[in-house]
């Protein structure tokens, strides 16, 4: 088998993904491809995104046809150096297909893959991927969960251990949020690290999770090896209070959908399954009260209560703020005028969920920051 031939396979986005449908090829056979290039669009029942090449080469075969639905890990295309022979490529594909075994139906569901840790009397659910190095901790935002990192977690875990947790009141973690303010949630993050024996981590927080990570980095500087905040709270007073209140109040699909669409630059990403999953979360006993408590403490009257902007300059480790220019929840203007120690990356046209919609670029920036 020639080492000059490399595969592009169906990715696994999130714990529940079993298969994806090839929506469109974005590259033609014969195109030169570099790592990070978007090769094709793939749709799953939950979400659509582009598949990126992890290696370089010339796209020699489009193995999967547009419209075809394939299991995770199935062969989508073949990259090879220019001098690879067609016969060798055909043999490579034949051998791959002969040996490919689709993942078993129940190989990995959420309850099997995630773990629980007791943090000060609260059960906190988390997912660990990768191993070694100074770990990364991914902290989601208001109303989110660890699946908000489905396009980032695996990629960042290629080089180190990466934890994504469900904050109290979210996902399958305990519904008791206490005071529900940024300080208490930062104390939970601190307790999470202590419970798992993590002395120091690269903190990556989105939205409310950004404010929580920032708070911890300020209160306990030794715990943060670096800090990345994305579409973050805690850097200005403005926030879309209508989104927070509407997200909490909506009990039905058609009431929730317009609020969730505000999170994305491409509302087409808001699938029925995504809304159904959010409704299923919101229907669980205790969730509404938890979200109301957090909202009342975090953004009373529709503006942020905790603004840490003046202190972000005190952080000695590398700091980065990533924003979508079209963020409709927390305005990108909060990325302006930050102290010089903060690397600022504003992505044109992106929305609040920039880590999902521009995952490869966000992953590259984080990898670059933490080295």
């Amino acid at each position, binding site marked *: 088998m020639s080492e000059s031939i490399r595969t592009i396979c169906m990715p696994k986005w999130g714990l529940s993904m079993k298969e994806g449908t090839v929506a469109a090829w974005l590259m033609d056979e014969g195109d030169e491809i570099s790592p990070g290039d978007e090769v094709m669009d793939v749709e799953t029942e939950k979400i659509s995104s582009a598949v990126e090449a992890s290696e370089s080469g010339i796209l020699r075969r489009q193995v999967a046809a547009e419209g075809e639905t394939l299991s995770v890990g199935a062969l989508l295309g073949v990259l090879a150096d220019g001098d690879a022979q067609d016969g060798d490529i055909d043999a490579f594909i034949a051998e791959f297909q002969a040996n490919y075994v689709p993942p078993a139906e129940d190989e990995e*569901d959420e309850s099997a893959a995630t773990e629980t840790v007791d943090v000060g009397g609260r059960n906190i*659910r988390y997912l660990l991927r990768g191993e070694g190095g100074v770990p990364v901790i991914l902290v989601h935002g208001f109303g989110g969960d660890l699946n908000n990192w489905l396009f980032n977690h695996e990629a960042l875990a290629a080089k180190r251990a990466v934890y994504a947790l469900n904050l109290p009141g979210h996902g399958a973690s305990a519904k008791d949020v206490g005071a529900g303010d940024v300080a208490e949630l930062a104390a939970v993050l601190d307790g999470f690290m202590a419970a798992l024996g993590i002395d120091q981590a690269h903190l990556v927080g989105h939205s409310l999770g950004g404010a929580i990570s920032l708070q911890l980095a300020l209160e306990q500087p030794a715990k943060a090896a670096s800090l990345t905040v994305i579409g973050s709270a805690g850097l200005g007073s403005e926030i879309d209070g209508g989104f927070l209140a509407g997200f909490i109040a909506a009990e*039905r*699909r*058609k009431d929730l959908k317009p609020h969730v669409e505000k999170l994305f630059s491409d509302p087409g990403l808001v699938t029925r399954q995504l809304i159904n999953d959010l409704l299923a979360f919101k*229907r*669980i*006993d205790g969730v509404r009260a938890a979200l109301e408590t957090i909202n009342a403490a975090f953004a009373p009257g529709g503006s942020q209560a905790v603004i840490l902007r003046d202190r972000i300059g005190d952080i000695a480790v590398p700091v980065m703020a990533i924003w979508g220019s079209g963020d409709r929840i927390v305005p990108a203007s909060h990325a302006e005028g930050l102290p010089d120690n903060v690397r600022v990356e504003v992505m044109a046209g992106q929305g609040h969920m920039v880590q999902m919609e521009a995952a490869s670029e966000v992953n590259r920036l984080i990898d670059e920051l933490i080295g």
Partner: protein
Amino acid sequence: MARKITYQQAVNEALAQEMARDETVIVMGEDVAGGSGADGEMDAWGGPLGITKGLYSQFGDRVMDTPITESAFIGAAVGAATAGLRPVAELMFVDFMGVCFDQMFNQAAKFRYMFGGKAETPVVVRTMYGAGLRAAAQHSQCLYSIFTHIPGLKVVTPSTPYDAKGLLIQSIRDNDPVIFFEHKTLYTLEGDVPEEAYTIPFGEANVTREGSDVTIVTLGRMVHVAHEAADALSSDGISCEVVDLRTTSPMDTDTIIESVENTGRLVVLDESHPRCSIASDVSALVSQEAFDSLKAPIRMVTAPHVPVPFADNLEDLYIPDAAQLQQAVRTVMGKD
């Protein structure tokens, strides 16, 4: 955290969690404890199919075996509800409801109205329905349309384990009488169900499959038949949207109309008889509210207007199947 359990386990878990949460919730019915008041093993049965098994051990006398007298214990459940309990009565087969019509139709359904909104009757009647178990004409009917007809009753027909748990908890917490229909062939169906308690609001249909050519409105067991047909039709390039009503009273008319406005075609799939049915009700709604959107006449796929046969081959013919539904979809598509 969701994990896979059966429809039967989902019903049992909903009962157990609500009984643990609220001590006014009681369970009563024929053999729901099994063995109580007699020599022998307690908690032996848990109802004819074991749905309530284990509850007696956990909750003792709050799980009550009743005499084989539906008229008495459904009446007792209605009375207990007016007096502050939240009874969940198990009517073994919905076919037996005939002897308790007055208790349900004239009493439970009317109290809130006749007492000027001051009376509440938070009773749930769980009941088994549907054909497919060779149980013959008196144990196999789909009688949800009869209850849907009566103002003051809420009617729930879950199609999946997830819906069964969330809708049953909602039913128990609801302050009006609810008839909760469990299809006997769905009890072994597995699906993702959160461990925590949760509720699904009444009157919210679930679009279980999105499509652009034909809307299939259905409920209960037939949701799965609709998916089977939709899968087959998609390979012929026909895109079906499937609307699972979840509750027939209240009914989510908005979702039905919106879907038909998008697809322009409607087939209603209902295991019940065709006359004065959910199928005819949905058809009337769409012809009145969305006539201008229709590109073809509405089709109803239902059981025939005959009793459920006992002979295996005739019962199989009686139950609407995916082939009949596919034929109806092809007809409204002009491709038959």
